[in-house]
């Protein structure tokens, strides 16, 4: 038995060409989901195979790669993917957002503004924003073809009728370049405004569902809303307990079983950079009162 050998960045060249062609069409048709022949990757479907294939197809020896999951470089899946590219591409890796040229992410857009030299690659589980309203691909494809998006507006409006708000907190649908309704991946809606008119190229890879889509730089990305119920980005009522940031997305840390909570930045690089600059938060776990009703 011969020990298997693998190509630069794991994928064979034919697969890379196929993915590269899909990426170019995705950029040419912003927000449209290009089908591609996703390969079996040495990690499970649903664990970032789409993002990994996109990253593998664009990555070169001069790149500096950053991988985050939930905003953090140190979550196990982020480490696992980073190590995969270190091993298969020998590429330089970094946790610094500003130094990275390619950033692969799951569930977050980091706080630092993206630059023109950067590419952000999203891992996407379900790329179809209409999927939970209409499970059939043949139907959703027709709806996109005709730009027939009434269904999703009805869903959002039903939320308002039931809850008084649009009850979508993450994977909040957007309209790209005033044409295609797109799923931003399960990022919190807090991050949606960062996608609009962004300087960097944003690429989205869904491995199991075999779709690639893109937002070119300087492209309008409008979160769906209504005139009387405009899109409201999520705001935290707290500051980061470590760096005191008031503008970042916060993780809730449960510190005991008596209701104590504290909030810290989800973007670990942002938080650490601020702490290095001398910003200090309360650093104390303070009780958080869950609002109750009888």
């Amino acid at each position, binding site marked *: 038995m011969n020990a298997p050998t693998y190509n630069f960045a794991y994928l064979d060249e034919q697969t890379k060409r196929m993915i590269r062609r899909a990426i170019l069409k995705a950029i040419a048709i912003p927000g449209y989901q290009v089908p591609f022949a996703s390969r079996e*990757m040495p990690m499970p*479907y649903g*664990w970032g195979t789409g993002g990994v294939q996109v990253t593998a197809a664009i990555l070169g020896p001069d790149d500096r790669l950053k991988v985050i999951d939930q905003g953090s470089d140190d*979550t196990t899946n982020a*480490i696992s993917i980073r190590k995969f590219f270190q091993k298969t591409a020998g590429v330089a890796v970094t946790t610094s957002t500003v130094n990275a040229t390619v950033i692969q992410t799951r569930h*977050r857009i980091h706080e630092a503004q993206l630059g023109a030299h950067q590419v952000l690659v999203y891992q996407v589980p379900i790329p179809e924003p209409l999927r939970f309203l209409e499970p059939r691909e*043949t139907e959703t494809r027709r709806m996109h073809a005709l730009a027939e998006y009434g269904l999703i507006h009805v869903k959002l409006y039903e939320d308002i009728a039931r809850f*008084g708000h649009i009850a979508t907190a993450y994977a909040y649908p957007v309209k790209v370049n005033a044409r295609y309704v797109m799923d931003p991946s399960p990022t919190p809606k807090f991050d949606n405004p960062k996608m609009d008119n962004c300087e960097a190229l944003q690429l989205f890879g869904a491995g199991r569902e075999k779709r690639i889509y893109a937002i070119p730089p300087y492209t309008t990305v409008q979160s769906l809303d209504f005139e009387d119920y405009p899109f409201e980005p999520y705001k935290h009522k707290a500051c980061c307990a470590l760096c005191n940031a008031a503008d970042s997305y916060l993780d809730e840390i449960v*510190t005991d079983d008596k209701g104590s909570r504290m909030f810290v930045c989800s973007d670990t690089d942002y938080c650490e950079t601020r702490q290095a600059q001398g910003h200090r938060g309360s650093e104390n776990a303070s009780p958080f009162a869950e609002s109750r009703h009888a």
Partner: protein
Amino acid sequence: MYVAVKGGERAIENAHRLLAHERRGDRSVPEVSLDQISNQLSLAVDRVMTEGSLYDRELASLAIKQARGDMIEAIFLLRAFRATLPRFGSSEPIDTAQMQVRRRVSSTFKDMPGGQVLGATFDYTHRLLDPALMGEASPEQPSVVAEAEPGVMPRVTDILGRDGLIEPSPVEDPEHQVGDITRDSLSFPADRDLRLQNLARGDEGYLLALGYSTQRGYGRNHPFAGEIRVGEVSVEFVPEDLGFAVPLGSITLTECQMVNQFKGSDTEAPCFTRGYGLAFGQSERKVMSMALVDRALRARELGEDVKAPAQDEEFVLSHSDNVQSTGFVEHLKLPHYVDFQSELGLLRKLRKEFAEANEAPTPMQEAAE
């Protein structure tokens, strides 16, 4: 003071070491060899090769060993390896009529040319645990099998076909290249070539359940097991610079031709319809289930109502792959605290508004109570 969790990298390395340790188990017990797996757990190897779409007994055995006997994990290992292999071309279509048959049963005719060949089967064993196998058993040598007469094992469907009693098997169409679901993403509606490829790689348990559902009335198509045959078939390849077929070797296959209720119209004489299943190795349950589902999925082209789950092409084909399904189900183990936090924030807001509204009930609400 709170310190952010670090050291994920060390944790992963330690987990891998622990996994290798647990895989090995008690080190005083001899390690299982690939030969032992390939020979004594051969049906497991067959399943991993079939759903892993790679005919390599040694690598499939390795995958089973590495996966600690977890079949879906083993299939996944083989698939991931397969995805990196260069592709030199496609073989010539195999001819199962030329199969060196080891087992062949038909439920439609008592006897036919070549006869019924029972072969090695669980079918008529009494399912009694065999204490003799608790130690090292040395079973009796099988009695010498009569040599199958060469060239006299026509397929039952070919016999029916001569009289036009069954629809003809589709012939190769040079205008329509056979698709490849491992190289193109599946789009709907999908033709039968793509559907059969999808089912061949599909999870055995999933196909079994769907096939069973058709028998219970969810898309019933009155099946008869026209023939199930197991044996060796040679594989040939035409290198471009040679221009003629050269044999690559032979592989073991199981084929099921299901004969189903007839179709017919004002212009066409009624005839039986086909459902087809094919798998690597000896995989009878798989090919029979596959043939039932294949037939059910032909509802659209045969002008039948699509009502049952097994007839619903998009549903069946989108959920058949166990490597995909297991990945997505198990990905729920990954951290989701960012999106959960977003939901939590929204839920707290909604509950607060609910509480406020209920603390100061309006006269209207009181009147309604």
